[in-house]
Structure formats: structure tokens, C-alpha cells
């Protein structure tokens, strides 16, 4: 039986954190300028007719673009039940370890005529002001 020492916990925890930091850092190099839609759901909680997976529709509209304006006009608009569109997309371009990890982003939006802009601005060397 392997005896776990305190030093093992340190080194294990630190190694895991550094792996995560490494993935996070490398992801910046994989920030591409082409959208890949992973999933899109439309949800109108008050109308059972307008609900479900609209991935193929949004994918057809946005895949490969850098900026995509999605509009999903709702047929039945109820002020008490604003519809929501949820899109999950990735800007990750191919890389040697793409199969090893996956990163994605998502945004939710609640307006009457559902409009959303998704984009892949590409890698930016940014400055955080404080």
C-alpha cells in the first residue's frame, strides 16, 4: 500500500494546477477566427410549439464566420414569457492537442425578438488595467 505523504499532496495539487494553467495559456494560441457552433437551444416557456434544439439552423447560419448575428423571430410574443436563445460555440482552431481538451463559450439572451451576436475575434495580447 502506498503511503501518501504531505509532500505528495503538494506536488500533486501543484502539478494539476500547472496543467490547468498550461491548458488555459495554450488555449490562447488556439483562439481562431472561425465560429464552430456546438449547440443552440430556443426556449419559449409559454409556448410549447416553439421549443427545442435549433443547432442545425444556427450552425448553417454561423459556422466558419468570424461574426454572426442570429435572429430567431418568435411567432407568439408574450411580455410575461420572454423567449431565450442559448448558443454554445467554440473558436478553437485545430491544434496538435485538440483531441485532448475542448473549450467552449456560451451566452444566454432574453429579449422578445431573440437576437444574439456571437464572434471569434482571435487571439489578442491584452492589457488589464487596474
Amino acid at each position, binding site marked *: 500500500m502506498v503511503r501518501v505523504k504531505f509532500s505528495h*499532496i503538494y506536488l500533486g495539487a501543484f502539478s494539476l494546477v*500547472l496543467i490547468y494553467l498550461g491548458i488555459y495559456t495554450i488555449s490562447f494560441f488556439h483562439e481562431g477566427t472561425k465560429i464552430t457552433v456546438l449547440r443552440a437551444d430556443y426556449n419559449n416557456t409559454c409556448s410549447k410549439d416553439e421549443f427545442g434544439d435549433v443547432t442545425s439552423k444556427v450552425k448553417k447560419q454561423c459556422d466558419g464566420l468570424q461574426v454572426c448575428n442570429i435572429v430567431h423571430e418568435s411567432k407568439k410574443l408574450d411580455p410575461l414569457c420572454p423567449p431565450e436563445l442559448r448558443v454554445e460555440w467554440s473558436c478553437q482552431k485545430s491544434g496538435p492537442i485538440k483531441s485532448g481538451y475542448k473549450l467552449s*463559450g*456560451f451566452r444566454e439572451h432574453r429579449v422578445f425578438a431573440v437576437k444574439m451576436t456571437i464572434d471569434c475575434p482571435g487571439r489578442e*495580447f491584452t*492589457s488589464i488595467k*487596474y
Partner: protein
Amino acid sequence: MVKKFGPFIVVASLVFTLKLLLASVGYNNDMLIWKDVSEGMREGFLSGRSVYTYTQFYNHGPIRSYALFILASVLNKLSLHDMTSFHLAVVFFLSISDTVISLLLWRMFGKIPAFIYLLNPVTTLITGYHSQIEATVIMLGLISWAFFLKAKTLYLNNDTKYKKMLLVSALILGFSMGIKHVLFFFPVFILLAHRKHKLFSTKEILAYTLIPYTIFFGLFGVEILRDSYNSAAVTYRSIRLNVFEYRAGGLYGNSTFATLVKLFIPEYYVDTYFSKIPLIGGYTFFFVATLLSYGALVIAKLKDLKLLFPLYLLAMFAFSPSIADQYLAVPLVAMAVFYENIISFIYFAFSYFYLTTGASANISNLSRYPMVVSIFGFTSPLFPFNFSFFISVAHIQAWSILLAVSLLSQISGFSLVPAFKRVVKGFLW
């Protein structure tokens, strides 16, 4: 040799690469200031420009400004004027400092503290992204300390080479202080240790103490004489205001230690009476008094002299009247050496979470959207963290104060466990 150092070389190379990658991801305000200073020095250093009259944002010893001049000149020659190249060059040199510290820790304290220091994410973030100079200052301090301990061994063996070692140690310590004054009170610790343990002859120890201070203050004298853009009075005034009277902006007096002082002495009295003390006015007085008292208490009972250096670094951070993100790097050597104390682990954890979401090293805020990592089917959040708790540097300093007190009690042979048992017994019966 390869079998012994092979894993270290591999791990050190990977961590080195990670720090360089982090440097290419982004930068913060401090980097902008250093770039501006380096450009200013490149343009004016040879014609007598002093960094202290060039900018108010330079609050350390002059050696760093000389290094920034050399760096800017080299980058200019290579036509590398962008921020990325500058950041990468700075991180390259700082990463070497971290690796050397690790090697010295291995030599002095063993393999485990060396690897803990090498792998800890706090160093990775402060060197790789925040890119502050603490690592270089501490590296030089550790080299100086290694020479000092070697000189002590030679002295005990009546080998006259100890004098050369002692001189080299003093010069390197002075050089470190000339970059940043983290080790400013360490010669006093050595004096206190000599009083207790008779390290060398008193004359030699006094000379050892004077050399770093002569270098430190002498360098400012050189700056005053060198400055051809302004009169000596103006340069002196700038040095006095920007270095010796610098109080870390709005951070001064708000640290956990300063808050503890305020529990006993109202802020009004600190401002009214203690601020009149020259150079160490206000909370700085309490910092210096506590630091030196702690040093005296620790030295009185310390059996292993080499622990003095990490204990000093711990005390410097624990009793500091002001806290900034980069100060978190100061006690890391101590945390690695005293890793068996659970407080060290808590310090590392809190510091890491703070740095990834805090003000100046807020690396997680570089992400444009919440990131979820999926590695071979296993999913977990990445950045930014969605934790509900909020960690501040004040919490982190509190843990370091606790560690300092805990180590003092251990060194003094006082254990809290019997006392705790007596209290519990008292309640039960």
C-alpha cells in the same frame, strides 16, 4: 548526475516554458510602467538621466533601472519594440532566478522544498504574468546566505578562506538591496544572531553589516551625482519621496498587520504621534519593531542557523504594513521550507485563487467567456472561477502571521496542544 537531476531538469524546463507562455498571453499596468522606464533609461541613461527624476513610479534601488537600460538597449538593437518581446525578456530572466532559487533550496533544505518552490503556481503567476522582481532579489539573498553559511563552516575549521566568502556574501547582499530593499533588515538579523551565537569576530560582523548598507545608500549617492538633468537637491528630494517615504499608495495601513495594530492603538494616535518618527514613521515603526523583536525571539532559540533566511522572509511579509500582489512572492521560500505545516498549503491555495481573480494578476479575466475544460471526457470549470467566496491579500497575510507565530512557538519549544487539553479539561470538570 543525470539520474539525480534529470527529473528536476525536465520539470524546470516545463515550468520555464509555461512562464514564457503566460508572458505572451497578456500584461498589466506594472509592465507598462517598466516598459516606459526602460525606454526612458535607454534614451537618457548615458547622458545622465536618473530614474528618480524621470518618473515617480520607480520606488526601488537603482540597479533595476540599470538593468532596464541594458534590456531596452538590447531589444532596441534587435528592433524588438513591442510589449510582447519586452515581457518575454523580463520573464526569461525572472524564470532563471526562480530555477536558481529552487536549486539552492535543494542544496540547503532538500529535494522536496526545491520541487515545491519550483512547481508552486504562485511563483508561476507572479513571475510569468505579473513579472515582478522579487524572485531575483530573493535569489541573490539566498546566494549571499549560502556564501555566509559556507564562510561560517570554514571559520569553524580555521580555514582563512572564510574572509573572502564573507566579503562576497556581503557584496551580493548589498547588490540585492540595491535592486529592491526586501532584505534591508537582514543584516540586523545577522547582528542579532552574532550576539547570540558568536558567528565570527565582532569586527568582521560589523564590517559585514556595513558593506550592504554602504552599497545601498552609496548607489543613491551615485544617482544624485550622476543626474545631469536636475540639481542634486531635486534628485535627493525625488529619492526621498519616491523611495524612502513611499507608502504603497492606498494600500498602506490597510494590511492585516496594520489592522491588528489599530486594535490596540487607534489610528488617530498612530497618525499624530508615530508619524513624526523619521524614515520609519506611522505603521512602519510597528513593522520594524515587530520584525526585529520577532527576529530576536527566533534567534534566541534557533538551533539551525540556515532557517534564519526563510524566517526573515516570512516575517517581512507577515508584519508588513502594506500589501501588494507581488509581496506574496516574498515568503514563498519559507512556505516551501516549512511545507509540513498545513498553514503553508493554505497560503499557497489562497494566494493562487487570489492571483487568478485579483486586481493586478487577474489572469482569469483575460478569458472572454466562461471556460469549461473537457479532458478525455472529464469536465471541470477553468477560468474565470465561479467560486462564491472572495479572498483578499489581507486573508493571506493573516495566515502568514499565524505561521510566523506557530513557527516561533515550535522553535521556542512551546506547544499549544497541552495548553488546549488543559482548557478542555477545565470545561469538562
